[in-house]
């Protein structure tokens, strides 16, 4: 069995967590003058994180492949506001809340995928039940 469990899901979770932090910072700074709202491009960020995977050197054919993640490369960019305000703040609370809710749902989805994989593995290990 080629064991490559949880591929990409770990990075996806980390990127989701990063996006959660960025969006929560935006909502927290909704009333801060001159604060510029930011967001990450999830697709690009995940591709960058997956591309920078670390692997262990193998000295024998019997060694298993092992993966590790390098630190999450943040790809934080500034948001272009639809309605700029007079105090230089570019946070649009409704946009940020929608993005936050979307991100939370996708975090949960990633968790569900991971959970399914863990259950599958346990099923295989225990041989049923």
């Amino acid at each position, binding site marked *: 069995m080629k064991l490559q469990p949880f591929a990409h899901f770990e990075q996806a*979770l*980390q990127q989701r*967590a*990063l*996006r*959660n*932090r*960025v969006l*929560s*910072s935006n*909502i*927290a*700074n*909704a*009333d*801060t*003058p001159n*604060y*510029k709202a*930011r967001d*990450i491009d999830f697709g690009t960020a995940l591709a960058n994180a997956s591309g920078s995977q670390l692997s262990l050197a193998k000295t024998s054919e019997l060694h298993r492949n092992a993966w590790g993640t390098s630190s999450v490369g*943040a790809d*934080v960019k500034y948001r272009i506001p639809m309605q700029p305000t007079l105090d230089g703040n570019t946070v649009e*609370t409704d946009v940020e*809340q929608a993005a*936050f*809710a979307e991100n*939370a749902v996708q*975090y*949960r989805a990633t*968790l569900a995928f*991971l*959970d399914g994989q*863990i*259950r599958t593995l*346990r099923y295989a290990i225990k041989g049923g039940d």
Partner: protein
Amino acid sequence: MSLFKVFDVAGSAMNAQSVRMNVTASNLANAGSVSGDADKVYRARHPVFATFGNALANETGVAGVRLQGVIESQAPLQVQHRPDHPDADENGNIFVSNVNTVEEMVNMISASRSYQNNVEMINTTKDLLLQTLSLGR
């Protein structure tokens, strides 16, 4: 787990918003207060928010809110000519505080909404963390 930072961020914002609520309460309580001395009359106060340090420069994505200070409004005082008032100055004038009640009510609603936003953010993030902890159960 990096999601924990959200609690710090939201906590700092809630702290700042609660200061804003307190300042608004002081302003509303002192609206209409008068004095015969222009230097002693209550002037409206407003909190000034700022982002923590160089939070925007780093790439962790975390940017909390900090209270930079509380400034006194420079709006002109209203002068009323009321010679019968016990606090009136030698010209018979009294000065009325420059608190704008409408502005303060707007501030109060805005602060309360922002506070609620942050509470919701903490609740959602808490749910996500708890679900992460129960992975594979």
